[in-house]
């Protein structure tokens, strides 16, 4: 195992082409790989034209929500009457997701280039790259690359010789999942608690420091490079399923597969093939039980759904789940779904920012009920209670953290009810560690 794995023939290597090649980390190495060509192209263009190309490419946000990137950029004021900001969301914390970390570790200049292009498009002089505090190695690599980029004149007061200013700073997080939520991220940059903000105002009107701001995920920003290098049409053609989902996407696969890791495939690639073929399937004697395809915040799929699921925004919705951040968590038949769902609930209870009542109290209560079931003290009505609490935690809060806690609970009880009932009836032994 370990990283990087040998590329699988069914992968489409665009973003991850240089993963594993330490040479691509440096400025020179990146230029040799064809780096900074996209930025040159972009800087020669009118910002509105850059936005138009990205719009045409069909590129959608890779952080989870799948919002069209060009459209998001177009929400920024056309005239720069006050400072505009770009925030790069590198707070990768969604359980199951570890793709942005690899992008930063192997191709830091790709991210710098992507940020600079976006900055040009939205007319932002300053970009903050918000990296989660635990990512010590990516932070060090990114910082070294930034220093190089300033030295080489990519960034600074005369960026790429255009006499324009492009600045980029790393802002290190300090342990808070919720800072991956875009408004919480802005608060965190401002030196505040990472509390999500109520919207409106939207970031494009009033974002970080009260100024027009765009927040993009790491993978989204590096995906802009092939769009500019190869053209919108070329990018748009990268689509195996629904034409509204274009390009390639990194899928982080973890859990009970033989070969976990990051796999880059074209949008619409079958999830079953990714798990069973590219990742080598389950360990000996084991069978696939369940899969969470888009990071822990999306509904769980059972085996049949997993095998029927196409990995694009629409294909996931068709199976009752979401593409999310592309963090694929695989469970084989040895997995205790009740216990693992409790662990997810614990995660959300731990990470709740404490603002909204439903989330603050609901996530913690959910954990208590699940722990009680696992102790063998649960009652059948606890399952209905869990579903009812989940209903109260869905669609009623500032951000979707409590919705994310509810998603695996609701789908878990629906699809694996027998495992919950086994703890309640005593058919399954209580979990000793919790008693």
């Amino acid at each position: 195992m370990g990283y990087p794995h040998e590329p699988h023939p069914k992968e489409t290597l665009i973003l991850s082409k240089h993963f594993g090649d330490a040479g691509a980390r440096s400025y020179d190495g990146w230029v040799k790989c064809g780096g900074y060509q996209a930025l040159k192209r972009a800087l020669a263009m009118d910002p509105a034209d850059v936005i138009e190309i990205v719009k045409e490419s069909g590129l959608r946000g890779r952080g989870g929500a799948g919002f069209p990137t060009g459209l998001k950029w177009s929400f920024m004021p056309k005239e720069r009457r006050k400072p505009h900001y770009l925030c790069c969301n590198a707070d990768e914390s969604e359980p199951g997701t570890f793709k942005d970390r690899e992008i930063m570790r192997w191709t830091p200049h790709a991210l710098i280039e992507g940020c600079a292009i976006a900055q040009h498009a939205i007319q932002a002089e300053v970009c903050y790259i918000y990296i989660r505090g635990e990512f010590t190695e990516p932070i060090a690599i990114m910082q070294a690359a930034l220093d190089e980029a300033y030295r080489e004149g990519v960034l600074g007061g005369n960026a790429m010789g255009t006499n324009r200013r492009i600045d980029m700073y790393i802002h290190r997080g300090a342990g808070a999942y919720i800072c991956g939520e875009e408004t919480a991220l802005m608060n965190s940059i401002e030196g505040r608690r990472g509390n999500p903000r109520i919207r409106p105002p939207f970031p494009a009107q009033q974002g970080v420091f009260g100024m027009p701001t765009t927040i993009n995920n790491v993978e989204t920003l590096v995906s802009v490079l092939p769009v500019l290098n190869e053209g919108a049409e070329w990018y748009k053609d990268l689509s195996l399923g629904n034409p509204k989902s274009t390009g390639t996407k990194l899928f982080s696969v973890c859990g009970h597969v033989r070969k976990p890791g990051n796999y880059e495939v074209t949008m619409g690639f079958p999830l079953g093939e990714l798990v069973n073929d590219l990742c080598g399937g389950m360990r000996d004697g084991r069978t696939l039980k369940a899969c969470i395809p888009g990071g822990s915040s999306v509904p769980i799929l059972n085996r049949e759904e997993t095998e029927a699921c196409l990995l694009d925004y629409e294909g996931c919705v068709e199976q009752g789940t979401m593409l999310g951040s592309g963090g694929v968590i695989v469970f084989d038949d040895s997995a205790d779904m009740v216990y693992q769902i409790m662990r997810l609930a614990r995660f959300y209870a731990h990470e709740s920012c404490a603002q909204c009542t439903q989330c603050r109290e609901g996530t913690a209560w959910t954990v208590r009920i699940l722990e009680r079931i696992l102790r063998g003290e649960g009652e059948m009505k606890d399952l209905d209670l869990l579903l009812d609490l989940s209903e109260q935690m869905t669609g009623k809060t500032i951000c979707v953290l409590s919705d994310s806690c509810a998603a695996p609970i609701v789908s878990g009880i629906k699809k694996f009810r027998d495992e919950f009932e086994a703890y309640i009836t005593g058919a399954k032994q209580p979990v000793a560690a919790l008693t």
Partner: protein
Amino acid sequence: MTERQDVVTLTIDGVEVSAPKGMTVLEAAKRAGVVIPHYCYHPGLPVAGVCRMCLVHVENTPKLQIACAIPVADGMVVNPYHDEAVEARRGVLEFLLINHPLDCPICDQAGECELQNYVFREGRARTRYSPTYAKRFNPVEDFGGDILYVPNRCILCTRCVQFMEHVADDPVLNVSDRGDRAFIGIHPGEQLEHAWSGNVVDLCPVGSLISKDFLHKARAWELDKAPGVCTGCSQGCNVVLETLHNTVVRLRPRTNLEVNRFFMCDHGRLDYRWLNRGDRIEAPLVRQDGDLAAVDWHHALERAADIVKGSGGPIVVLASARASNEALFLATRVAGERFVGAFRVERVDGEEPLPGVPNLALRSERAPNVRGATELGYTETFDAAVTALADAAAVIVVDEPLDTVSNAALAKVPSVIYMGTTLPEPARVAQVVLPITNVAEEDGTFVNRDGRVQRYLQAKTGPGMARPAWWVLGELLVELGRGEPLATAGEAFEMLAGAVRAFDGISYDGLGYLGAVLGTAAKAEATA
């Protein structure tokens, strides 16, 4: 007049209402007579949007919306009682209660608690939280000033944090930790020392931030309440005087957007014990055979009238800037042509502003009616007046405590009529002592520093035979043959308003609960 395009029409709970653009649905709902339950929202604070209690159904909107944050729109149809909204609020209430100690029997807030009220209105009859789960527990903390924090009752609405940060501009409170471990925190080196920090107790919708002064003093439902005006300084903050068994036990701010919005300072809030003093004069006294002897009102007023009639030369009125306009005015009438009036006011260095509210501060002049006294012809020449007492034919003391006056100074005057609530040493030389009520025991008006005439209403009964100063002076005028009996403070005020130019156009009834500004009529005339 508002331009038509700045007003929108929407429907809230089936009632069509008009509201200015930019107003929130929660505020507009009040116009439709609907109070949408809420915790974190407060009209005096920035919108936090965190408690999620004010969720309402808005037609053609996929999700429930928080009424505190969404602006009104033309044609909007809001249903606060839609099944989904009611269910969502029931959910919030259930979540708020799971860790709540349910200690209402020993909670000061009981009876005026928004958690109690909304659970009563919309909550579930039974909890679904297993009794085997431990509830969150944190010990009571002293936040300094007058404030205790009972974290177990806290619902994390953050009103207190918002107030200290955005209104008091002294962010010494925070939300600490996160998730269900969160609580309102303070740094060990800091305290709630701000002059306005007591407002967090009023703002707290539950019994989490409580007043040490009021701790376990009364149940909210036993209190009688009367609208008043704070006497702590010349700002004239509108207050509610709350009494238990005829004793003032608490002052709280009363909303007046023109004066104090929703707030009052701690100095004014805690300055009420003097209203309950026990050493009161309970009967009129007159000097007989060298001693002061209790008599009935008729006898005392006769003696007072004799003094006024029998003396020639100046009649000096030593008045308090805490006396009502009505009393101050009638005293000038009693003295007539021979009136010389002086008052004294405690002045301290500096003001204590509330930064988030323009023109609101604990003022350096520590009396409520300096402006009124000045308008009515009194001057702040108290010490000079006292020094010159030798030339006075008579002195009428109106509620002035005589703290700075020596026994000898008054003894020089041939005749002293003393009207007061207590009998300080220098007043014992008086020929007549007339017991009056204090500000909590009478109706009347003050004029604040900005010229706003404001009414205060009686909150408790005075002791024994004590009567409002306006009544006493009115009767004295009758005794002098210069007036008709006055039945109410209102009649006294109308007499004043008819006689003093500055009060032109102001009527007692017109003052309502929010007051009116002096000179408004004159200004209107000038522009007409």
